[in-house]
């Protein structure tokens, strides 16, 4: 479960040594786009030694590896042997990529006696968006992550503040995630100096069903965590609903604050409480 995931370039020692103090639910150590071709080995060595020698690590470790089938992918995957990587973030995911990675990891895990690797799919191509229903059921997946910069580049369109141009992709990711019990992770807000813009973007993404958001700067975490957490009022409401339900477990529907409460609403209350506990808000 995530609200916020913070990208850290894999070749930046200053950010690495602070990775555990940021308030992100997960840190994404980036070996892909943030790293120039000449520095791939350097970044991989740094992240590997950081993971294997640091006594305190972030709550959840995500590794963005280079593209499957490329020169660096197999070397990046070697970091799974550290036992410290919780999830791999796979760029440009589509049906063929998912099938190829699944086969590759099945063999790799058997050979190296590793547990099943869990994946976050980065959806950043038009093909990836269209093929979502074809691979979202893969048991390795835990989340779908919209990468709007690459997607809009693929579509040859500009990004806007309103995000109208990514509405279809956002919606498709949200619905596919909900249908497959995956976390829908929204694309980062790229203007790191606009907290007002970030708040608006987060609030909108959350209102249509995104469950988390990626961040590209630590100063974005506070707003993202706040927007994607249940509010105090929501938690109070959910606790009250659950309390009434537990005292009358055989009553299918009841009234609370003038509104009818039945199973879907009780389920929503349970999810709010679960989330509040997970994020230590209770």
């Amino acid at each position: 479960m995530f609200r916020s995931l913070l990208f850290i370039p894999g070749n930046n020692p200053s950010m690495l040594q602070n990775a555990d103090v940021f308030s992100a639910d997960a840190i994404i150590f980036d070996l892909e786009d943030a790293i120039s071709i000449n520095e791939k080995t350097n970044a991989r060595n740094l992240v590997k030694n950081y993971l294997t020698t640091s006594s305190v690590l972030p709550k959840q470790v995500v590794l963005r590896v280079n593209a499957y089938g490329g020169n660096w992918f197999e070397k990046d995957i070697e970091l799974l042997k550290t036992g410290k990587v919780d999830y791999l973030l796979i760029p440009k995911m589509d049906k063929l990529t998912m099938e190829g990675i699944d086969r590759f990891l099945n063999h790799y895990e058997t050979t190296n006696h590793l547990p099943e690797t869990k994946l976050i799919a980065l959806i950043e191509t038009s093909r990836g968006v269209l093929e979502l229903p074809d691979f979202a059921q893969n048991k390795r997946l835990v989340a779908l992550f919209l990468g709007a910069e690459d997607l809009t580049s693929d579509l040859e369109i500009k990004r806007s503040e309103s995000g109208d141009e990514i509405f279809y992709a956002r919606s498709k990711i949200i619905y596919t995630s909900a249908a497959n019990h995956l976390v829908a992770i929204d694309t980062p807000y790229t203007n790191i100096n606009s907290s007002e813009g970030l708040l608006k973007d987060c609030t909108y993404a959350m209102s249509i069903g995104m469950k988390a958001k990626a961040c590209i700067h630590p100063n974005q975490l506070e707003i993202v965590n706040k927007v994607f957490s249940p509010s105090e009022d929501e938690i109070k409401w959910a606790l009250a609903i659950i309390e009434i339900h537990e005292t009358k477990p055989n009553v299918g529907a009841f009234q609370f604050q003038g509104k009818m409460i039945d199973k879907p609403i009780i389920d929503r209350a349970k999810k709010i409480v679960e989330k509040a506990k997970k994020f230590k808000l209770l």
Partner: protein
Amino acid sequence: MKGIAGSKESNDCLITIETSEKTKIEIQSIVGAFFYEQILKTIEDTLTENRIKNVLVKIEDRGALDYTIKSRLLTAIERMKEDV
């Protein structure tokens, strides 16, 4: 043969390694007064683990932690091996 890795950014180090008649380690560090021995040990241990002998290692340290020094040295070694 020579390999270079790292940077002079804060919390990083720039490491140069090249073949030499005997192993020699030169350390310049902003925290050398406190951590010279620890930096030296990290470099010596990494060279030993990788069976590297007869090299000159120069490090310009800007407060790098042990794992950063080790990582930069490993990359410099790889680059030295590729430098033919």
